[in-house]
């Protein structure tokens, strides 16, 4: 079972916090990988919040291919940042790529008066194009191409990955207000970078643990729904696509995500006032139901962070907080490291029928299904 976590704060913080969060949960993963997504960026990226930021790991050739494509579409590079890589330390358990690219781009001139939707479409199309090109040549991985989002996925021991990228020491440059993080326990699949959580699409981030036992059902339904629903390297990608579909495509409020993935039992449903709606959802989206065991942590484009579980609560998760930070993670030991002085009585162990939602003021709501 992977260990997953999310930190949301009203102050910018450095990803070193996520390494702290994961350190004590180490027995729960197998050192096969470490990945995180930073959203609501500060520091060096703060001036570029509205512009697309490319996160990519590739070879030199892959970089040329990607840049050619981006230029041909009309994107122009505005800012570039490369992590300070520690190449001297020997014996690190990591299989790095030659280049890690984090670049901010200006939209093509043609898009000067484009709507938000048009721009978002362009970003998705561009990312898919880049991914395809890099995949064909096996020259690298593109993780995200979106505004205010930075992503890194690496194979190896999380501690060594931290050392390699110099992530153990905090600084004020490389910071954000939301970071979601995963340490992998590799089970079903080859170790491929795309299979590492968190997964990201159009402002939605999801990470999860456990098996998706309805993977085949979910995937068969999703692969025809949207051009961005691709890959399926991990069975947990389905959770992201469902979130995106329900909230972004169908435009249903977030709480209906819970009704889609873990519908209430029929007996209970028919006693409710909103039974007509719930029964329709259950029927029409039965192929997006999940049947456990899973914990799912998600972030929506407006920065809302949430966690929810399968209908039997077969995977652990806990939410802890102080007045500056909320932390969600698999095991309470992780929170104890990051927020040792918090009032543990305010810790929340979500039940199988709720969604714990953290808004941008760090207000926590417990939505009962």
């Amino acid at each position, binding site marked *: 079972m992977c260990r997953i976590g999310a930190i949301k704060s009203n102050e910018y913080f450095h990803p070193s916090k996520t390494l702290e969060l994961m350190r004590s949960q180490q027995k729960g993963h197998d050192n096969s990988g470490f990945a995180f997504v930073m959203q609501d960026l500060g520091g060096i990226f703060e001036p570029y919040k509205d512009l697309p930021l490319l996160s990519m790991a590739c070879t030199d050739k892959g970089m040329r291919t990607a840049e050619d494509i981006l230029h041909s579409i009309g994107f122009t590079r505005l800012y570039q940042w490369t992590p300070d890589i520690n190449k001297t330390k020997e014996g690190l358990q990591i299989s790095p790529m030659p280049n890690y690219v984090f670049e901010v781009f200006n939209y093509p001139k043609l898009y000067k008066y484009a709507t938000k939707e048009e721009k978002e479409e362009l970003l998705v199309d561009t990312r898919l194009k880049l991914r395809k090109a890099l995949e064909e040549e096996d020259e690298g991985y593109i993780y995200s191409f979106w505004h205010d989002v930075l992503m890194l996925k690496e194979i190896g021991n999380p501690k060594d990955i931290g050392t390699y990228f110099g992530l153990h020491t905090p600084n004020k440059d490389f910071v954000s207000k939301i970071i979601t993080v995963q340490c992998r326990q590799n*089970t*079903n699949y080859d170790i491929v970078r795309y299979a590492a959580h968190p997964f990201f699409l159009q402002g939605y981030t999801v990470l999860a643990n*456990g*098996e998706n*036992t*309805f*993977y*085949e*059902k979910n995937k*068969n*339904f999703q692969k*025809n*729904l949207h051009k961005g629903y691709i890959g399926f390297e991990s069975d947990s990608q389905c959770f992201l696509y469902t979130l995106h579909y329900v909230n972004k*495509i*169908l*435009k*249903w*409020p977030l*709480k*209906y995500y819970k009704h889609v993935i873990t519908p209430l*039992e*029929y007996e209970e449903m028919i006693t409710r006032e*909103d039974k*007509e*709606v719930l*029964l*329709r*959802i259950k*029927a*029409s*989206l*039965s*192929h997006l*139901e999940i*049947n*456990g*065991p899973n914990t799912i942590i998600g972030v929506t484009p407006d920065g809302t962070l949430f966690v929810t579980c399968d*209908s*039997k609560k*077969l995977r652990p998760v806990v939410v802890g907080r102080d007045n500056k930070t909320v932390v969600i993670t698999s095991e309470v030991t992780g929170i104890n490291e990051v927020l040792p002085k918090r009032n543990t009585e305010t810790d929340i162990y979500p039940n199988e029928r709720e969604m714990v939602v953290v808004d941008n003021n760090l207000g926590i709501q417990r939505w009962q299904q």
Partner: protein
Amino acid sequence: MAAVDTTKIDKQDLVWQIEHKSENCALCGKCVAACTFGAIKADVIRKREIISTDLTPNPKSVEKAIPVIKQVVTKSKNCVGCGMCAKVCENGAIKPVYNERHRMNVKYRANNAESPKRGGRTNLHTEGRTLDKIKVGRISQMTDPSLDAMRHTFELLAPFGRVMPPENLPLEVDSTGNLQLNKKIPTTRWIYPIIIGDMSIGALSPRLWEAVSIAVAYLNEVYHIPIRMCSGEGGVPEKLIRSKYIKYLIIQIASGHFGWNRIINSMPYMVDDPAGIMIKIGQGAKPGDGGLLLSKKVAPHIQEIRGVPKSDLLSPPNHQGLYSIEESVQKMFLSMNAAFKFRVPVSIKVAASTTSVSVYNNLLRDPYDIVGGFFLDGIAGGTGAAHEISLDHTGHPIVSRLRDCYLAAVHQGKQGQIPLWAAGGLGMKGTLAADAFKMICLGANGVFTGRLILQIAGCLGDDYGRCNACNTGLCPAGLTTQNPILMKRLDIDKAAQNIVNYFLATDIELKKLMAPIGNSSLPVGRSDALVTVDKNVAERLGIQHVC
């Protein structure tokens, strides 16, 4: 020697031969009384014995008359092997024996100039059952916790009715952030994933039909197992139409429209809606043949329920006046939906065929969103009566066809929108839960079963040629007869109880299969849970090949 007519049917030509041991026979006559087919009679044979009773050999010839039970051999009606005689004989003196080298296929046709008919199902058994080659192989072992069939809750429900594509649901967000339906759409109901499938009153004796209805009502009302039964094409007793139990009944309409007059006339008096409507186009056991109820079974009560005179009742093999799928949807579905004001799901039943996928694809595109279920019936299904040639040589196995239909829907991104229900030999070996579960993993929303119900209620027939005389009206178990005396052989309460018991056991077994794969709701389309040692099956169905 005078000419012997070897074309005549004699005992060695018969499919079933009676073996009678006169030394064990108590001459009670019970077997002759029990045989509804008149296939045996009490008789005497002349026997000559040479005996010697003196001290020194002095052979004498004596003639004896020995009472025996003799097999009656006729051109067309002979022992069907039902074994009723053996059942009633306390001394084990009599039994039917299957004659592998029978010549009835030739002799029957040559002597009668007609095609043999029978009930039951295909008896050819030329291939092994596909479902028996499939196992549930994806067991939760440490990757994820398996569930406990006895402790966890499971939801065994399948949709019946049109399921709208999510993007077409008329939902809008209200001011409080809740979704509201802003338009009426056709009904989708949630029912048990097994339907007791369409055997008409007429094919079944009213007593058996009553037993099935009692069992269905009992399972619903007492055990809360929302099982439904389909009427078959033969009308519904008026008392039932006007009772609240109509809600457990799916009413069938087929090309003969038998009984519909009465149903339509009773509609204003219905206190509840029926569970659904099923339009029957064809039947898996005899595709291309219409319904067939021989006049022997058209007793007065059947004439009344169906609104017909005493004669052979033949439903045409097609719905006269319908020439295409689109037309069927427009005419039949619309009128049926409208009749019940779109409150009652309307479904269709077809015989599995190489064309099933095209039909299903077409229905999925139905612009009115009114096709509420696709019932696909495979070759190994049962029938009350059919020509043997259809039974044994026409039809299509269900498993790959169901899978193809499901995958066709997946290809269109429309899986689940017209619920898929499969039948045709499911439960043939008595383990309906396993068959149902595997079909569900392959993409069925549920299954339906008919012949198995007869077995549960005491049918003496089997799939190896035993009995299958349901067409004759002489059912020795009182199940498929309209003869008032034979009907009494069925104990209604006992049959109802056995049906209830069987479904209670099946319910547990379904959970026992869901638990190890870690699912508490039905794993529709979860073919990753299945494995097979047969490479061809694996390839054809797209499931894992294992060895």
